[in-house]
């Protein structure tokens, strides 16, 4: 009986996901599409939880629904006044995107079919479970992300960093919102310390339970978003130099740790078993700070006020003037 109920629940979940994804893409109103996309992110988080992948569920809820939603809504604010009405007919670029999406769908379907039905079912999970003791942590997801496949995570951090370089090169940050109602600023003041504690908890707990640098970083970035919505123009980011250091801290510490174990005749990122736990924690703290800084800068949507000081072309001066005025408003 309960088995049947779960099947029913899964079917409803799958149906809702496909339906919501379709409506989010098909709707002609951008704002509605963004809100539906945030709903879709939450639904995906439930699916990950249902698949017993709480790490992914946390990451999806915090980054996919939370931070990505905030980024999209902020981008939407920039678009106000621009007509969202697509042109009539079917442009060539739109057709190309559609073809790409269909191709991706087919490739992914083939991959899933191959992995689950056609091949002999060799899974890496058993190998991970077998050698978990050597990783320095008890949570298998953290063991894979920060030890067994640390190289991938290092490259992911590099991708985030490259994306932020892109954001910073677009132009000055969006002008800050005015400090809103007392209720909002009061709530922000109340929530910020709680969220910082939660971020620290997620970071620490990652060693033996769901959590880790990405979730903790997203939580800290949520603090920045809240501060910004509450009227704090710099969104809690420190000064220019400190922010730049924070941005490279994650990759920097990761690479330094990876290289220094090579002095002990080990491969790049092959931590010695007895201090692996400490090394992973050090890397995760640095990565959390860098991810949070990167996401906060992405939410600002460009260089924060004061960053243009060392590239003082006339165009930059004009931009900075605009940003300063926005910041003071």
């Amino acid at each position, binding site marked *: 009986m309960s088995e049947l109920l779960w099947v029913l629940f899964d079917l409803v979940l799958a149906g809702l996901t496909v339906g919501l994804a379709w409506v989010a893409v098909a709707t002609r109103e951008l704002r509605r599409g963004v809100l539906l996309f945030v709903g879709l992110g939450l639904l995906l988080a439930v699916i990950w939880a249902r698949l017993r992948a709480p790490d992914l569920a946390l990451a999806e809820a915090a980054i996919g629904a939370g931070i990505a939603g905030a980024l999209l809504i902020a981008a939407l604010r920039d678009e106000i006044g621009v007509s969202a009405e697509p042109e009539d007919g079917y442009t060539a670029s739109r057709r190309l995107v559609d073809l790409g999406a269909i191709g991706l769908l087919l490739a992914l379907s083939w991959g899933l079919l191959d992995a689950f039905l056609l091949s002999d079912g060799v899974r890496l999970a058993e190998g991970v479970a077998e050698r978990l003791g050597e990783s320095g942590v008890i949570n298998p997801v953290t063991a894979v992300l920060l030890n067994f496949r640390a190289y991938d995570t290092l490259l992911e951090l590099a991708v985030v960093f490259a994306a932020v370089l892109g954001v910073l090169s677009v132009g000055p940050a969006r002008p800050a919102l005015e400090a809103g*109602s007392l209720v909002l600023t009061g*709530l922000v003041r*109340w929530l910020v310390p709680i969220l910082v504690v939660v971020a620290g908890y997620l970071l620490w707990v990652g060693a033996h339970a769901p959590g880790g640098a990405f979730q903790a970083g997203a939580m800290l970035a949520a603090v920045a978003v809240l501060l910004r919505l509450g009227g704090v123009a710099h969104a809690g980011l420190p000064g220019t130099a400190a922010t730049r250091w924070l941005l490279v801290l994650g990759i920097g510490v990761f690479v330094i740790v990876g290289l220094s174990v090579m002095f002990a005749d080990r491969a790049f990122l092959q931590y010695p078993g007895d201090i692996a736990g400490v090394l992973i924690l050090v890397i995760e703290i640095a990565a959390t700070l860098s991810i949070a800084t990167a996401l906060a800068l992405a939410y600002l949507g460009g260089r924060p006020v004061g960053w243009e000081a060392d590239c003082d072309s006339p165009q930059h001066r004009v931009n900075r003037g605009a940003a300063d005025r926005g910041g003071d408003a």
Partner: protein
Amino acid sequence: MPDVLALVSIALAIVFYAAGSIGLLRLPDLLSRLHALTKADNLGLGLLATGVALLAGDLVIGIKVLLVWVLVLAASASSSHLIARYSMQAGNRGHGE
């Protein structure tokens, strides 16, 4: 006994959620809809949290669930206030719009 209490609590929560959702869909203007929604957030989630905490039967988990409820209460009350305030500023004075 705790199980029965939990079931009653969760069943009541579902009633409040259903009422809140129907209210959101059926009520005529924004302020009445917000009024309906807060019932789902406050009482619905409160009863649900009570039920879940009773089912878990663990004080630590119970306190965590209670904290979740308090956080949602603060967030939903504030966001309802902000939506209502925005709508008032945009010229909506309540009944009948």
